[in-house]
């Protein structure tokens, strides 16, 4: 039975890491998406200063996880999300509501896809 231990432990470790990664990715992207929702509401109410500050905080939060994201996710997906954050910040500075809201919606959708890519589902496996 001892001889079965190394492969079974390795498989278990990969499985645990995969499940942990799936949960971490979901909670992180959900948090960023919630932050975007709040920022969007602030922009709609015309409070651009708070919207910009909220967006900057969310971007800092995102940037703090960049290394982890680059390790586990496709680099293209991570880079394009980064680009969307920066574009949304630029629209917030110029207070262009239509473009800002479109960018935020795009960013939220992108975050959802980032989390979905790591989710264990029949759709992903197949």
């Amino acid at each position, binding site marked *: 039975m001892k001889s079965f231990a190394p492969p079974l432990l390795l498989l278990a470790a990969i499985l645990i890491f*995969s499940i942990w990664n799936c949960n971490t990715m979901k909670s992180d992207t959900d948090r960023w998406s919630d932050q975007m929702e709040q920022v969007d509401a602030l922009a709609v109410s015309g409070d651009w200063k708070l919207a910009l500050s909220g967006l900057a905080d969310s971007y800092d939060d995102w940037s703090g996880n960049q290394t982890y994201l680059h390790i586990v996710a496709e680099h293209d997906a991570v880079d394009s999300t980064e680009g969307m954050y920066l574009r949304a910040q630029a629209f917030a500075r110029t207070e262009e509501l239509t473009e800002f809201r479109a960018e935020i919606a795009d960013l939220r959708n992108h975050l959802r896809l980032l989390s979905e890519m790591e989710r264990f589902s029949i759709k992903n496996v197949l």
Partner: protein
Amino acid sequence: MMTAFSRTLILYLLIMIGLRLMGKRQIGELEPSELVLTMMLSDLATVPMQDFGKPLLSGVIPILTLLALSMLLSQLSLKSLRFRSLVCGKPTILIENGKLRQGAMRKNRFTIDELLEELRGQGICDIQSVKYAVLENSGQLSILPWPQEQPPTVKQMRMDVKDDVELPRILINDGRVIERNLVDCKKSEEWLKTQLKKHGFGSPGDVFLMTLTGTDTVNCLPKEASK
């Protein structure tokens, strides 16, 4: 990660089943599980190596999963004969007592032309001169001719032959003395110097190869001067 992990599990098992269904002929020299591992590993390793946009883990996770699966399958094969025959298959007898087993050939999709080709490769032209031909799990055909079709052995001829098969030990390899072998042969540095002198060498550096057999026969090859 979870997707990569589960996809690897599914694909590994799928290819294993596919190869087992394809029969032994397709395998070549490896066993099915080894072939699947070799095929998949070589491809997986190149993906993150060439595409810098993909995380290294996208290659590492499937590789580790495959290695663990392969280790698990080989351990299971060691423990259970039934599992082993399920994964690796069983050798199939294609010729038994000089008679062709056509059913076994059909089952393994082994044509008569291929069988004759294999026999010719071993210098056999007639099926009847083969006692057994076994299609191994690796896809190779082992051919055992009738005793009267084989050259007689010393034992069969009841001859008394002196055992002179000796594995020579290398004492000097390209000018370097292999101290460990010298100790294993219970020879001293002094003995080595005497031997060198006896063969006309000044130092071990002049010798390309010096070997010693169990019957204390020393063979020396001088080192050629580099051009």
